[in-house]
């Protein structure tokens, strides 16, 4: 209690008065579209041709809201010893009434078949309509923003680095030679 008595009361009044004079950040949503941050989690879009039915998304989903069905199809490659098989997607549903927008399915997808889209206006009057099938999920692909540009200061991707090395010819600087010493975990048995 070293402060002057009543200072706290006046400070409180000052805070509310200051807030009164600063502009509110409210966005008048139905009239004005909100400006969402680029990585907004609105809805999950499916790029069907990228999906290999590996089921990783369905298995990692914490609340089991992804339903996948598929069948195998024989692909006859002329000249090959035997026919190849590939998976064909029959059903890919996401139940957005269960989804908790954790994004794990998008993280685990090895083939970039799932993407975040910032669209969020898909409320329904019937909860069953929140089950989006693969066509509906595919339509969301149009709204997926392009991926953010690469960090200009970052390392080039492996593919780019390899292409550059091959173009420069043998003996040129490789990524391994020029890179800063990275924290590489020694492989067991490699260095003893």
């Amino acid at each position, binding site marked *: 209690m070293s402060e002057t008595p009543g200072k706290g009361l006046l400070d409180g009044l000052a805070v*509310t008065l200051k*807030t009164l004079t*600063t502009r*509110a950040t*409210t966005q008048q949503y139905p009239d004005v579209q909100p400006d969402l941050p680029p990585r907004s989690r609105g809805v999950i879009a499916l790029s069907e041709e990228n999906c290999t039915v590996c089921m990783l998304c369905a298995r990692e989903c914490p609340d089991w809201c992804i339903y996948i069905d598929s069948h195998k199809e024989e692909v006859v490659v002329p000249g090959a010893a035997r026919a190849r098989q590939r998976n064909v997607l029959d059903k890919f549903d996401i139940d957005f009434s269960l989804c908790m927008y954790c994004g794990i399915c998008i993280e685990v997808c090895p083939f970039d078949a799932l993407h975040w889209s910032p669209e969020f206006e898909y409320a329904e009057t019937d909860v069953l309509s929140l089950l989006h099938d693969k066509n509906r999920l595919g339509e969301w692909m149009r709204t997926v923003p392009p991926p953010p540009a690469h960090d200009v200061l970052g390392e080039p991707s492996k593919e780019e680095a390899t292409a550059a090395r091959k173009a420069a010819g043998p003996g040129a600087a490789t990524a391994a030679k020029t890179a800063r010493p990275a924290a590489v975990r020694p492989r067991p048995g490699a260095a003893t």
Partner: protein
Amino acid sequence: MDLLIRILAVMAAFLVLPLVVGQIEHKVMAHMQGRVGPMYAGAFHGWAQLIADGVKFVQKEDITPKDADRTVFQLAPIVALFPYLVVLLTIPIGPGLVGQNLDIGLFLVLAVLGIGVVAVLMSAWASANKYSLLGGVRGAAQLLGYELPLVLSAASVAMAAGTLSLPGIVEAWRPWWLIWQAPAALVFFIAGLAEIRRPPFDMPIADSELVFGYLTEYSGLRFAFFLLAEYVGIVVIAALTTVLFLGGWHGPYEEQLGWLWTLVKVFAVAFVIIWLRVTYPRLREDQLQRLCWLVLVPVSLAQLVLTVAVKSLL
């Protein structure tokens, strides 16, 4: 005919001013909390929000609980609202502009404001609800306690002016009274806040402890009456503070613009009431009584002594 016009004018003020204050509260409170408040009703910044609320309240079912004391329960909102109407009748707006010029205006105002506690107790007891009852008992303790500093500080200014008539007090007012009567003004304002149960003195309602205090069982139009009573209360306390301590219609060009000065001062005080509501949390029940009996009552008594001393020196 003259009387009719006066009564109509007071009626209009009674219906319009609380709505304006309510709308100001909506907007000021919202902006103080970094929001924008109602924006749709009436198309321009939600100016018709309280009218829309009124229409909504009228449509709602008027429920009287089964165990409630029906007549008392249904009468309480009127008892809460009516005293304020009477008070508004005696408040002068400009020189000669007053609903009814009474020689004992201040006495009547304080007596009639005391009826508020009856409305609180009526609604609390008749609701047959423990939360209502707790709120009502809290309200009774609070209103009776704060009546004393309210009356004492009002008495100080009445002694200074040498009259109980509200227009008389305003006429006798001089700018240096702002300093002379400052403690009384402060006490009157704080006690007035407690009298109308505004935050930070809203223990009888205390929505986080007592559901909604003595208003718990009310719905529809009767609930709206209680809400209206709260906003008329703001107007009345702001107007009384203006008339008694801030010099009413005194200001530049007071012959022509006296009424404007009164209104400006009333709204300024109402703004402070809203400001305090947004800023401060509710007092605890024991802090409430402590503030009243250990701070406000001694200060107002000391102010009485000061008033007498200065008055006898003049």
